[in-house]
């Protein structure tokens, strides 16, 4: 294992120190990342979190127009209730707090427990479950939350910034999740510092289809084909679940180890696919936003936006990883 770390156990703590040193707009206390300026009276607070190793998710999205706090757990392990409780209290401006939770058993359980333990603050929860690679049925824990988390945090954050009530913010968050789908493909496994070796072995000539963001194996393993064909697989899976039509917010996301030039090659194919379906990419992101440590690969996330959602997407945002309008 080759990593820029001090010790496997201190990665998260060391990285949080770096984050604090790099971004005066953030404050880090007890493994929670807050906006430096603290809560705003009357504004709904947004808290998200989950295992580390997905940077910039979630701490890179803390700031004006997006999250109020992020709770990073150990690598690939959801945070425990205590910091979530701390964060919830820390961001409350009297208008209640929204928990944005990616749909993983661990995240769900720990956020649930935290929510129960802060009786004095009104807490609403939205579960993000956009990954079409997972069949949503009685026979699974339901779909995983992946790329759409960025859409949910940005759009809900914008509405909260405008002073909307908790119920409205929770509603728009749920709406964005419903309108979003994602699919991921891995060229290589990732290596968790604690494990010290790749989570799975992938031959030089094969890829994993339908991977999550924790180095879990995907649903199937197929030969490595061209970017055009791989983008096609991802887009067909999404289109088959939520037909592409109208205006689309599209993110081509790198898994952490894939160079930007390759992501643009993929985006070109995704754009061609969308055009072929008669839909239109009205907004887009290309880069590393929801990663899986050093994994090579990509995921595509699509949200069928309307004018209201587009306006909220365009609203000013000022975070380490997403910034425009100020």
């Amino acid at each position: 294992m080759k990593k820029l770390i001090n010790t496997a156990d201190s990665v998260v703590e060391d990285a949080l120190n770096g984050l604090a040193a790099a971004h005066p707009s953030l404050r880090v206390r007890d493994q929670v990342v807050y906006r430096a300026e603290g809560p705003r009276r009357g504004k709904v607070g947004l808290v998200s979190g989950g295992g580390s190793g997905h940077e910039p998710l979630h701490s890179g999205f803390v700031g004006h127009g997006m999250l109020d706090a992020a709770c990073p757990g150990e690598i690939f392990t959801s945070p425990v209730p205590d910091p979530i409780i701390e964060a919830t209290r820390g961001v409350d401006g009297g208008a209640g707090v929204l928990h944005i939770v990616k749909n993983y058993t661990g995240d769900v359980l720990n956020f649930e427990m935290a929510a129960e333990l802060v009786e004095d603050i009104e807490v609403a929860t939205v579960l993000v479950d956009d990954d079409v690679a997972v069949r949503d049925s009685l026979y699974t824990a339901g779909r995983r939350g992946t790329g759409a988390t960025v859409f949910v945090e940005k759009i809900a954050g914008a509405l909260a910034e405008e002073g909307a009530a908790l119920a409205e913010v929770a509603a728009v968050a749920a709406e964005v999740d419903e309108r979003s789908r994602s699919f991921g493909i891995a060229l290589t496994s990732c290596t968790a510092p604690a494990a010290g070796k790749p989570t799975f072995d992938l031959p030089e000539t094969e890829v994993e289809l339908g991977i999550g963001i924790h180095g879990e194996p995907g649903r199937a393993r197929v030969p490595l084909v061209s970017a055009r064909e791989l983008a096609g697989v991802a887009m067909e899976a999404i289109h088959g679940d939520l037909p592409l039509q109208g205006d689309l917010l599209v993110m081509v996301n790198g898994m952490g180890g894939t160079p930007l030039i390759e992501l643009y090659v993929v985006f070109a194919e995704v754009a061609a696919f969308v055009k072929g379906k008669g839909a239109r990419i009205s907004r887009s992101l290309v880069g590393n936003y929801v990663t899986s440590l050093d994994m090579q690969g990509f995921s595509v996330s699509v949200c069928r936006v309307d004018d209201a959602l587009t306006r909220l997407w365009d609203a000013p945002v000022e975070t380490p990883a997403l910034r425009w309008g100020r």
Partner: protein
Amino acid sequence: METDLFLAWFEEAARLVRENRDRLNRLDAAIGDADHGTNLDRGLTEVLKALDDSPAGSPAEVLTTAGTTLIRRVGGASGPLYGSVFRQMGKSLETPVTLAGFATAFEEGVVAVERLGKAALGDKTMVDALAPASRALALAVRDGVGVRKGLDQAARAAVEGAKATIPMQARKGRASYLGERSIGHEDPGAASAALFLEALATVAA
């Protein structure tokens, strides 16, 4: 069953998990995210610390401290799940602790996990090791076998239950994302549950 037995239980469980840490991680790597051993190892180390810092006066206190610590220190799915098993047991357990009393409290602990995780027998989770152990305890009580024999039968049932998860397709937790690909692997949580029961049988022997 005295307080010291319960303290010894968690010391032995911590030792066994440390010993099996990599195996549990490997099992989790096959159908999850490769951290179950790391998570439990971290959690049980904290449990021993907690039991050191505030010596428990009763078996119930030992279980409550253990459960709370697991919830507060492990994270992931297994933290809250194992945490509620022991916290619920702590709530239900009355001193002096008889095998019958223990069996009842254990059953309530298992029910707590099933409720929290919405998991049932056959979903390929820790429940598939915990539930059979609970039934074994109930039978032991009915047949009036002693503590040692009863815990021993529970441990065997748990180990068998864990092995029985191999052919199952997961319906809960990360493993469920793999669909058919989850078949053919032992569930890491079921495997660690078996370790907990083996630990108890060992210290009671």
